[in-house]
């Protein structure tokens, strides 16, 4: 058994980074939507502060929610887009006849997703301080926990989406943009899980985002860190991430059996 190679992971990350650094429009696009979302929800918060006791008591609750939602969404999208870059450029066969392993490809896409997410979310979070006087960094160390709870789930879904694209071809690429919005109603981004009908609540608690967003509200409204929520969220993440890797590797093996790798991009 030959082990995984950090050198190959870094090599593939460099491939994705070269695409980004060579295109100012792409870099701006990554930061654009999180910033627009932050501005819209910031003004909404300003308006609701006058109308709502909840918002006046915890002004940043919507802004923190939208920024953390972007961590989840951008984490998943960033990973899936890395994979799509190689589908679109018909490069997958070159990669998979090299010593690169599917798991190394998964790790490289995860690394690049982290970079893309930070490029997208950090400028928006800084602008939120400037525009609305709200710092998401006031969540303190708990923010690190929320960030990883969310982005790890994004990676898990992104890996599964990449596997499905490998299985179904570019026809499945709309999943990269849409899949997270199917999960959003159950993620408890803007409202507590308790708002959901009773039969939906177990489904919401079966996914890590609910733990992060409930934990965020505990900090901003209750002014305490619920470590139990964070631990359960991260434990679920480990499970989902393992399943995401498994789905990606299984789809790769299926593609090898069905001859799908050489057909990608056609």
């Amino acid at each position: 058994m030959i082990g995984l190679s950090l050198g190959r992971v870094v090599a593939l990350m460099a491939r994705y980074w070269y695409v980004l650094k060579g295109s100012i429009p792409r870099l701006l696009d990554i930061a654009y939507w999180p910033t627009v979302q932050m501005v819209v929800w910031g003004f909404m918060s300003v308006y609701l502060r006058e109308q709502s006791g909840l918002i006046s008591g915890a002004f940043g609750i919507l802004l923190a929610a939208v920024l953390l939602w972007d961590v989840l969404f951008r984490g998943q999208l960033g990973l899936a887009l890395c994979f799509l870059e190689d589908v679109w450029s018909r490069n997958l066969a070159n990669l998979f006849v090299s010593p690169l392993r599917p798991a190394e490809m998964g790790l490289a896409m995860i690394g690049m997703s982290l970079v893309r997410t930070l490029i997208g979310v950090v400028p928006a979070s800084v602008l939120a301080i400037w525009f609305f006087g709200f710092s998401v960094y006031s969540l303190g160390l708990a923010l690190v926990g929320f960030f990883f709870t969310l982005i790890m789930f994004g990676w898990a879904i992104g890996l599964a989406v990449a596997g499905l694209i490998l299985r179904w071809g570019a026809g499945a690429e709309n999943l990269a943009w849409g899949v997270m919005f199917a999960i959003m109603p159950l993620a408890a981004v803007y409202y507590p899980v308790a708002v959901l009908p009773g039969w939906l609540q177990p489904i919401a608690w079966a996914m890590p985002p609910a733990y992060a967003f409930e934990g965020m509200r505990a900090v901003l409204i209750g002014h305490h860190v619920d470590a139990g929520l964070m631990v359960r969220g991260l434990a679920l993440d480990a499970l989902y991430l393992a399943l995401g890797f498994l789905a990606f590797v299984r789809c790769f093996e299926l593609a090898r059996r069905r001859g799908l790798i050489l057909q990608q991009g056609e």
Partner: protein
Amino acid sequence: MSLQSPAIVVADLVKRYDQVNAVDGISFTVPSGSVTALLGGNGAGKTTTIAMMLGLLVPTSGSVRVLGHDMARQRARVLGRMNFSSPYVDLPHRLTVRENLKVFGRLYGVRDLGRRIQALADTLELDAVLDRPAGKLSAGQKTRVALAKALINEPEVLLLDEPTASLDPDTGDWVRSLLEGYRKGRGATILLASHNMAEVERLADQALMMKQGRIVDRGPPAALIAAYGRTSLEEVFLDIARNRGYAAATVEAAS
């Protein structure tokens, strides 16, 4: 591995899709340091065979061993000693040629990569395009860049799918000279699929004639031409494509 011992051993290889055998029980060996050509019309099974030799495709039955390793199960052990080029597989368009070669050099664990890239740029006359995006090159330049990627790790086994497709005669001849030089200099084993019969006559030690997933004839190009009583491999190819065996072809050639 000693000279003339097989670098590639293909045994009873079958690839079935639904009810169709894309490759139907083929067997052959490629001696180390030799050039073997897979010939056949569209859909004959050449690309499917190459994909199984690379481990990109798992055979339905049979086996491919490259440098002693089973490609269905042990491909990770040997992929670093092989490489591949095809006009149907591209390099990332937005990366420059240099960036592409850096990425693949690192994936193959090439030491002293800067020097290797420069050496390839010199050999393949790529200096002027090293810092241009790969997607903005002419067909001839793209072929040379694809060859640079295929040679980045100085492979012992080189698999080429139509290496001179869509090239003008001058560039095609230049590529063939390069491959001859690489085979001699490196002692490499080359397997190529081609529709260019003159190319095969010039480069190949043996030709495998494929039709409907099977090898219907094989041998050194000169021997095949003689056996069919023809003057070129292209005529042999047409005899096989049109179901004319040795006897019919020989009679027709004599008349």
